[in-house]
């Protein structure tokens, strides 16, 4: 188990830990994979550049699950991080131990939100396009977002404020005017009405249920109305996201072929062997499954039947949220079904991350901002981060 690679020189500035999906120039970035073990990038993430320029210091790199698609980090090549017999997450442990004031990381399949919810931290997944993805390991580019995790909403907002902004190096980056809507100085419309999705709150364990109830009670105490709403459509986001994420992952990790950098097999006599053996030896089992699944979804025979359907469902989920936001200011969802995961759960269901993401997929597939606090997710319309933070402050 490797939680953390600390930087050799002492960082005296405000300390930030970057997860291993964020490229840094002076520390290796492995993305939790044998494929990129020891990989030194020529470039650093825009988020890192902005933080450094603002006087923050990257104090180290926190391990992630292989390409950050698992529950909380258990598929890392360096071993699953555990604490007291339960799975944990490297970034969360480092922030909890006050080694760093906040963590930045790439939320691909909800692991950051699940880990924050289970670890009692606050995490923000900002509106897609407001934080540059330049210098992040690409996996599912259409939905993944750089996130901030900290002990409280104030620290989260402070760090988010630094990394938000237009970047010419990212073609999907929004304009400076749009990005500015997230700045903490901008006035926010207070959240008065929250929709709680009934289907999502049903099959969760007692501890998670208790967290939801606690949040509900705290909101109600402040006069915020929480209405239980049935919206079965939102549960379909998971299937669609699994298709889109797998397809994009399959394509994005195809660059790791043993030719240019990263792991290369010693066992080859021709280029096809080089490709096959490199990838066979360096990719983990979950990743290989997702590559196959994604490849199949994009095949000529399945494109219209599978991938294109995924895109259509994405549109429906967006419409579903638009309808909800016509009546409510935010949507309340759990971030996971369990208070904690164990290695046994993963052993019993290898693909558990692709069912547990039923809670995180709606915000991933739509790019909507989400603040995870008090063990639950609060999702708002695009650019509503300030309002979400204000509400989350009531129950963090």
């Amino acid at each position, binding site marked *: 188990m490797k939680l953390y690679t600390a930087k050799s020189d002492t960082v005296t500035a405000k300390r930030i830990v970057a997860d291993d999906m964020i490229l840094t120039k002076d520390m290796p970035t492995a993305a939790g994979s044998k494929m990129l073990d020891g990989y030194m990038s*020529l470039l650093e993430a825009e988020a890192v550049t902005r933080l450094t320029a603002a006087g923050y210091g990257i104090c180290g790199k926190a391990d992630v699950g292989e390409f950050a698609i698992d529950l909380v980090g258990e598929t890392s090549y360096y071993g699953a991080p555990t604490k007291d017999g339960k799975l944990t997450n490297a970034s969360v442990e480092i922030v909890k131990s006050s080694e760093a004031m906040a963590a930045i990381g790439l939320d691909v399949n909800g692991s950051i939100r699940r880990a924050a919810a289970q670890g009692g931290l606050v995490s923000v997944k900002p509106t897609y396009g407001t934080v540059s993805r330049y210098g*992040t*390991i690409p996996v599912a580019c259409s939905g993944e977002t750089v996130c901030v995790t900290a002990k409280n909403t104030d620290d989260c907002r402070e760090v988010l404020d630094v990394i938000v902004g237009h970047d010419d190096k990212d*073609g*999907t980056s929004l304009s400076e005017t749009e990005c500015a809507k997230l700045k903490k100085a901008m006035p926010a419309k207070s959240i008065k009405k929250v929709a709680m999705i009934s289907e999502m709150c049903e099959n969760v364990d007692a501890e998670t249920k208790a967290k939801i109830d606690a949040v509900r009670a705290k909101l109600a105490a402040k006069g915020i109305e929480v209405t239980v709403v049935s919206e079965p459509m939102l549960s379909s986001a998971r299937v669609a996201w699994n298709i889109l994420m797998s397809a994009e992952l399959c394509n994005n990790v195809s660059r790791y*072929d043993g*030719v240019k950098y990263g792991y290369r097999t010693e066992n080859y006599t021709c280029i096809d062997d080089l490709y096959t053996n490199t990838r066979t030896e360096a990719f983990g089992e979950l990743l290989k499954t997702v590559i196959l699944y994604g490849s199949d979804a994009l095949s000529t025979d399945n494109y219209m039947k599978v991938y294109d359907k995924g895109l259509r469902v994405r549109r429906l989920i967006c419409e579903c949220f638009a309808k909800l936001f016509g009546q409510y200011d935010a949507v309340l969802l759990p971030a996971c079904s369990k208070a904690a995961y164990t290695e046994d759960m993963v052993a019993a269901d290898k693909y558990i991350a692709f069912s547990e993401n039923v809670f995180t997929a709606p915000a991933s597939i739509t790019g909507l901002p989400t603040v995870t606090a008090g063990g639950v997710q609060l999702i708002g319309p695009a650019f509503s981060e300030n309002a979400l933070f204000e509400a989350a402050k009531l129950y963090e």
Partner: protein
Amino acid sequence: MRYETVIGLEVHVELATQSKIFCACHAKYGAGPNEHVCPACCGMPGMLPVTNKRVVDFGMKAGMMLNCTINRTTTFDKKSYYYPDLPCAYQTTQWFAPVAVNGLVEIETSKGKKNVRIKQIHMEEDAGKLVHDISENTSCVDFNRTSVPLIEIVSQPDLSSAEEVEAYLERLKSLLRYAKVAECAMEHGTMRCDVNLSVRPEGSDKLGVRTEMKNMNSIDAIKRAISYEVARHIDAIENGTEVLVQETRRWDDLKGKSYAMRNKETAGDYRYFPDPNVMPVVIDDAWYDSIKASLPEFPEVKRARYIETLGLSEYDATQLTKSIAVCECFEDAYAVCGNAKDAANWLLSEVMSVLGTKKMTPDSLNINGKSLGELIKLVAEGKVSRANGKKILTAMFDDTDLNPAEYAKANDLVVSNDTGLMEKVAKEVLAGEEKAVADFKAGKEKALAAILGKCMKQLKGNCNPQVLREFLISEIGKM
């Protein structure tokens, strides 16, 4: 039985932009290995594509030159396949909404004029290049060419002979060069062509088995490949020498044979899907109109103007308008010398002959047209002899800043007004040419030319030949 050949072409053309399609690296051909690369175009994780707007400008312009409809929302897609020269193992191309569709190109062959329909033009990035070192048993990858912008022009199967293919390729080259969007030089690999070919009994409306040939790098190679492939298809149909299958074949021009590369069953699945990192390009009216307004005068329009307004012959106008480089030089020269016929003659005879000796193509003509105009004026005014004019022209190829008048003066190429010198030289030469003088007197016209040549040589060409001739005849008359 008589057969007809059905051919469709996929033509790749490198766009002449300064930088690559998704990063700021140089797109120029000819640098040392891996000199024009960055983390983006060599496939390192973390770099994101940012679309080069000039590429879209050029793509639209190419579409308009080929009478296409421009897709006002055009998108990029990823095409996946493994090859060491493709660093990301995917190529960003256009599959679902290419920049231009449904075009039409008119070609002319010995059988007359014909329209070739264009299915689509899409923009995409080029791949790198493998350099195989057999002695070392290794292969090296050069990523200079990765992400250099390309357009692929896909025709409908409207061509039926090698002659038509040649006319079509020449036509594409001319139109794209007129628009200044591409060099289209097959010898530099900036124009490449895949030939889709099938054969069917004449009059049949059912297409035969289609094969696709790759790896052809000259029009002559394409012509040879087509005739080989047609013969192979007919042989297979008539004599059952082999079973034709839909496949991709590689043309080996040295051996004069095509070889199967992969067939439909073993072909990889490219798994196209929209690239989420490249935003759809929306072409608004202002952008569309600005490209439309920047289109050049089309070759036919130029040709007609040369005939009607400038009074050139049809032949001269046709020859000149084959290459935009020649047209531009002609127009600049004409603007200075004021005589279109003279300028056309210089371009089509003297300039073409220098190009020939230098083994250059008309498209690579790089002399300054205004200077050529000055030179034509000097010759027309009798200040420089035509022979010396050619010498100056040759020098202009090596120095585009050359001033013809100054060069003539500096190199003693100016026609002398010194009749005394001319007369002295003429008399000396005549004195030593008794036989030639006698021959001329006996009626041999040619004998005079030899005498004239000797005088000219001694005068270094700087003499009005007509004046010299008249003087020689009058002197011989006195002898």
